[in-house]
């Protein structure tokens, strides 16, 4: 499978199911790559997979794709440790890969099941930009006949918040779109804040659409709980200490990175929220406090 086929397959996956997380699409693509790979050694396989992941991050530079790729690579390493023979190993990998994909397709449902109990009747929720996981949680809460209303930030520069508002209106949930600058203004009316995450870092903090950090700081100031909903495949091996530490390759869109010379004139698309501002994380592995996230990562990567 060469580069163009890879990119085309990835794009096709994203088009086919717009609801699918980009990390899942990346893992699906890599699994397909694995199936078609004609390598003879495991080392060769790893190298070509690394190349494939780099290629995919060139298409979609979000943290999620990168974490999906790393997870897949880790999956390969773990499986190859058990079976030395390549052909047997490949067969096992393909089976487990399909199983893994099946399990993670259920992860959003698990997250929604855990989180919706935290939404009480009459609650006013604030959320940021467009997150499919948050949408799923709110769908579940609405299905449980809870009455709540939602404030969504517009989330410039791509106005993704409006997309979220439309989706919520279809669920008959009263929704108000607010300016990104109005977060502090609206927080006194709000009961809780729920956001999604593009990546969950080792410290328990999150990387999400720009404006999330601001929202977290304001929630802390107003003493409102700040909840994050994320699937477990978004856990990534980064440990940023401040906004500067987040690598540039995640901050800007893939096209921007390729075409623009001077990145300091571009607006970053994501920011980092430290764990001290997060109350709880809802994942398919359970409800976690930020300190529990690193434990999960250690269990996987060590």
């Amino acid at each position, binding site marked *: 499978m060469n580069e163009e086929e890879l990119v085309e397959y990835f794009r096709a996956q994203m088009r086919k199911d717009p609801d699918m997380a980009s990390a899942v699409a990346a893992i699906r693509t890599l699994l397909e790559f694995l199936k078609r790979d004609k390598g003879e050694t495991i080392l060769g396989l790893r190298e070509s997979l690394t190349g494939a992941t780099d290629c995919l991050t060139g298409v979609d530079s979000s943290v999620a794709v990168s974490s999906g790729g790393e997870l897949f690579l880790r*999956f390969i390493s773990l499986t190859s440790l058990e079976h030395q023979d390549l052909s047997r190993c490949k067969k096992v990998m393909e089976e487990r890969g399909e199983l893994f994909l099946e399990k993670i397709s259920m992860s959003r449902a698990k997250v929604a099941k855990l989180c919706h109990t935290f939404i009480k009747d009459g609650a006013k929720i604030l959320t940021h930009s467009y997150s499919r996981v948050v949408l799923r949680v709110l769908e579940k809460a609405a299905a449980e006949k809870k009455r709540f209303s939602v404030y969504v930030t517009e989330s410039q520069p791509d106005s993704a918040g409006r997309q979220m508002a439309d989706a919520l209106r279809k669920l008959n949930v009263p929704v108000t779109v607010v300016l990104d600058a109005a977060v502090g203004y609206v927080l006194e009316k709000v009961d809780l804040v729920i956001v999604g995450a593009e990546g969950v870092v080792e410290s328990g903090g999150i990387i999400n659409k720009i404006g999330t950090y601001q929202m977290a700081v304001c929630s802390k100031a107003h003493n409102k709980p700040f909840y994050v909903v994320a699937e477990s495949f978004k856990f990534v091996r980064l440990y940023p200490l401040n906004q500067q530490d987040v690598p540039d390759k995640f901050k800007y869109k893939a096209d921007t990175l390729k075409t623009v010379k001077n990145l300091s004139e571009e607006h970053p698309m994501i920011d980092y929220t430290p764990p001290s501002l997060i109350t709880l994380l809802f994942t398919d592995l359970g409800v976690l406090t930020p300190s529990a996230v690193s434990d999960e990562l250690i*269990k996987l990567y060590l």
Partner: protein
Amino acid sequence: MSTMVQVVNLTTMPGPDKETDLTERIEAFLSDLKRGGSGTGPLRGSAETARETTALLRRITAQARWSSAGDLMEIIRKEGRRITAAQPSETTVGNMIRRVLKIVREEYARSRGSSEETDQQESLHKLLTSGGLSEENFRQHFATLKANVIEAINELLTELEGTTDNIAMQALEHIHSNEVIMTIGRSRTVEAFLKDAARKRKFHVIVAECAPFCQGHEMATSLSKAGIETTVIADAAIFAVMSRVNKVIIGTQTVLANGGLRAVNGTHTLALAAKHHSTPLIVCAPMFKLSPQFPNEEDTFHKFVSPHEVLPFTEGEILSKVNVHCPVFDYVPPELITLFISNIGGHAPSYIYRLMSELYHPEDHEL
């Protein structure tokens, strides 16, 4: 002290009928729980309740009819749901049931020969390496399972007996001479803790009375009998006195899964005052008080009791014009707590998630 009423049926047929005996004991325990929750001291007897629950579970294991681990767990879960429904605020009952369920799982895994290292809990690692949708249905029969489970429950009971002493043993590390310690209400664990330290150190204790039940008075009497200089203050004076306090040591009814507390009414005030003065807040809580609940869940968080303690019925004229509430518990968020001292040592509140994963299995969080 809550006593368990044992109903002895003298008219049974020759040969004891284990089933009815068991059901009678469970009913007796249930009615005792329901009665015990009438609010005359919420911290009273949690250790007792834990021990009784465990003994009852041991009896169920010994006497009920079951052939595989799956059956036993179903029976325990069923009885567990009934018992927790009888008194939802008494979380130690639910905790003990979950611990016993975990014991059953472990013994089953050990009998099957699978290594105990295999993390039964969900993790990214497990997601990646498992070979099939692992449906562990616990159907295999093992002859020695019953004996093993009963032995493990006995170990649990021994652990429960020793909790207060284990906590009290750590007192000398935390209390130094000439310190002023503040506490609230009455906690047996804190009482033992302070008395143990008093054997070797001289310090001063200030007890907030904790209205309306004023259990602080009993605590103060008991401490002064042990030779500790004690002062009782009204709850309203907590903030005023806090500047002279070196440490705050409290007990709690439950430790929640995020590291927060459900403690006696007035504790949140105490915690905020301590935070304001940067005074360390130490919570003495044995492991059986750790519960997998999170504070924001919908079901019964608050327990209210008769408001006559707050506004007596004799004040007839006002009663019709006023709403009176008497909540029993308070929620204290984890940011206000410095240290948890339990029978297995000292921990930070951010570490509670780890202790929880060691004590309970995630599938048992909801009985």
